[in-house]
C-alpha cells in the first residue's frame, strides 16, 4: 500500500486531502506540526509528501531542500500545495517534484498523487 504524508497546518485542507486519498486507497499520515516532520518521515517512510509552503515554524522550502539533499529521503516525491501565485516557480527552484495550486481541484490532487505513487 502506497503511503502519503500530508504536512499542512490547516485542518480543513488536511481533512479533505485525507478523505480523497484514503478513498482512493492510499495510506495517509498527517503531520500537523512541521517541526516534527523529519522524525515522522524517518518513521513512516512515505512515497509522496504533500507539503504546504507557508507554515509557522519551518517553511516548505526548507523542508524540501533538506529532504532532497539527504540520500535517504531524496526519493520521496514532494508535491508543493500552495496558494502562492508563483508556486510553480518556487517548486522548480527548490527541486520539488510537482505543485498544486490552492484552491485545488480534487481530481487534480488524485491525478498528481497517482502520477508519483501509482496504485497497483
Amino acid at each position: 500500500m502506497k503511503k502519503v504524508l500530508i504536512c499542512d497546518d490547516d485542518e480543513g485542507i488536511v481533512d479533505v486531502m485525507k478523505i480523497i486519498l484514503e478513498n482512493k486507497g492510499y495510506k495517509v499520515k498527517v503531520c500537523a506540526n512541521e517541526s516534527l516532520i523529519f522524525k515522522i518521515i524517518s518513521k513512516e517512510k512515505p512515497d509522496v509528501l504533500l507539503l504546504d509552503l507557508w507554515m509557522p515554524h519551518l517553511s516548505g522550502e526548507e523542508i524540501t531542500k533538506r529532504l532532497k539533499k539527504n540520500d535517504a529521503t531524496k526519493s520521496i516525491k514532494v508535491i508543493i500545495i500552495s496558494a502562492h501565485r508563483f508556486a510553480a516557480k518556487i517548486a522548480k527552484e527548490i527541486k520539488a517534484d510537482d505543485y498544486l495550486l490552492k484552491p485545488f481541484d480534487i481530481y487534480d490532487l488524485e491525478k498528481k498523487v497517482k502520477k508519483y505513487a501509482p496504485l497497483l
Partner: protein
Amino acid sequence: MDKNKVKLDKEFYARLLDSLEGYAVFTMDKAGLVTSWNKGAERLLGYKDDEIIGKNASTILLPDERKDGEQVKELNAVSHQGNIKSERWYLNKMGYTLLSSDTIYPLRDRRGAISGYVKVMRDVSDFRRSENNLLFLSEASKLLSSSLNYTKTLNRVAEIAVPQIADWCTVDLLVGKGKIEQVAVAHKDPKKVTWAKELRKKQPIDMKTNSGVPHVLRTGKSEFYPLVTDKMLAASVKTKKTLDLVRSLQITSVILVPLLVGGMAIGVITFLTTGGRKRFTKTDLRMAEELATRASLVINNAQLYKSARENEFKFKSFVRSNIIGVFIANKEGKIYAANESFSKIIGYSREELKQGKVIRWKLVPREYETREKKAMKELEQKGSTTPWEKEYIRSDGSQIPVLVTSTLIEPSSGTNITLVVDMTERKKLEQRKDEFIGIASHELKTPLTSIKGYIQILERIIREMGNERAKTLISKTNTYINRMNSLISDLLDVSKIQSGKIRFNYEKFDFYDLVTEVIDAIQPTTTKHTIICKDCIHQDIIGDRNRLEQVFTNLLSNAIKYSPKADKVTIRMTRDSKYITVGVTDYGIGIEKRHHDKLFRRFYRIEKSSNQFSGLGIGLYISSEIVNRHGGKIWVESMEGKGSTFYFTLPLKNK
C-alpha cells in the same frame, strides 16, 4: 581835435560795437535814458534802437527790480565806484528773462565830469543754466544713489531743485491702479508747500485730463510748456473757481517728465517756474529727462532689490521649514547649500555639504544612474524635472528611498535646486500593505481550499446517489467558489502591479492551446451562451502562460457577464508579421464611447451598470497591465446596445 577825426572815431566805435555780436552794448545819459543801442543789444533784448533810444534803460529790468528803483541805485554806485561787474536777470521785450554778466562804466566829459554810462552785457543764461543744470544733476544723482528709500531721496531731489532749477518741483507716483500719490513737494516759498499739499487733497487729480500728470502717466512722454498762457490755463480747467486758483499760482513755464520702469510710466516729476522769472528751454527739458532716467533706474533697482529681498526671505523660510530636504547644486553636481532635512536624509553634516564635499552623482546608486541621467537631461531641456523615485547612498553606505524633483534656478549657469522627500516610512507602509494583502489573500484562500474540497467530495457522493437537482446546485456552488478565488487573486495582483512587483515567467507555447483550454473551462459556466472560436489559428508566442490565460479568461467572462440576453460569444484570431490579434465579441449591452479609454483604469466602473453587474473594476486594469508588459495593446470597439469587441495584441517575438 580834428572834427573829422572825432566823426571817424564815432563811426569806428559804432561799427566796432555792432560787430561784437555776442555783446549787447548801450549807452545812457546821466538820467539813465538810452542814447545808443547796438545790434547785440537788439538781438539780446528784442528792442530796436528806435524803440528804446530815449527811453529809460530800466525798461529791460525785471518788473520787481524796476519798482524798487534798481536802475537809480546802480547808476549811483557806478558814479562813486567806477565800473561795476555783476550778473543779473533782465526782461526781454518778448517777456522772457535772461541772465547777463555785465559791466557798467561811467562816461566822462573832458573835464572829467560824468556825462553818461555805458553798459556791456553778455548773455550767460544758457551757460549758467547748463552749469546749474549739471550741478543739480550731479547732486541729485548722488542723492538718488545714496539710499534705497526712493520716496525720501525724491523729496530731497525736489528740495535741491528749488530755487536754482525751478520755483516749484513735485514728484507724483502711481500707487495701485489709477491712484496717484504726491511723494515730494518743494516750493521756493515754504508756506506754499503746505498749501500745495492741501490743494492736492481738496482737488484730487482728474485722471482723464489730456495734459499734466495723468496724461504723462498714460503716454509715458514728457510735456514741455516754455510759456504758459492764460488761454492754456483756461483750457486746462473746468470751473471758474479753479481757473482763479490756477491763475493765482502765476505759472510761467512747466516741464513734466515721466519716470519709466520697464517701459511703463510709474510717476512724474514736475518742474514749474512762477512769476515770469524764468522760462524753461530745451536744455532744461533734456536735463529733466536725464534726471527722470536716473531716478527711474534707482526706483527700478530699489523695487527689484525689495522683491529680491522678499523672495529671498520667502525662499529661506521655505528652506528652513525642514518639511522636505532641499539642496542647491551647480551644473557639475557639486552641492553647495542644503537644509537640515537634506543633511539628515543623506547623513552628511551641513558643514560637509557647505564645503562642497558632496557631489550629487556620488549619492546615486548604480541602478539609478540611467534614470538620473534622463532626469538631468529633462532638467536641461525643460528647466525642471517630473518628480521621480530613487534611492540615495547615505554617508554610512546605507540606501534611503527618496522622491526628488529638480528645478533650474539660474538657467545660464545650470544652478538648480532639488527637493527631496524621505520615502522610508512610505515604503515601509507600502511593504506592510503588500504583505498584508499577500497574507490576507493566503488566509482567504486556505478556507476556500477546504470548502472547494468538501464540495467536490459532496458532488461525488451526490452523483453516486443520483440526485440530479443536488448535482446542479453543487455545480453552481463550484462556479461561485471559483469566482471568489479569482477575486482574491485579482486583489493580490492589483497590489503587485501597484508596487511594481508583478513578475512574469516567459515560456514558448501555442496560443491556440491556451484559447481552447480557457473556452473549455468557461463554457460549462454558462448555459445560455455558446462560445464560438471562428478563425482560431495555431501560433507560437513567448509569454507568461498563466498571466495570458488570466487576460483571456477575464475578457471571455466579461463577454458572458455583460451579454445576459445573448446566446453566443465569438472569438477571432488574426496574425500579421509582427503581432497576433485576439478579439472577443459579445452581443450584449455595449459601452458608451466616452468610457472606452477609461475602462482600463484601476477601479473604473460604469455607474449605470455597477448596480446591475457586480465586480471590483480591476479585471481590465490587470489585463491591460499584463498585455502592455508583454509589449502588446488592448482596446475596445463597442456600440451601446449592440455589443462589444475587446481586442488585444501580442508580439510574435518577445522583446
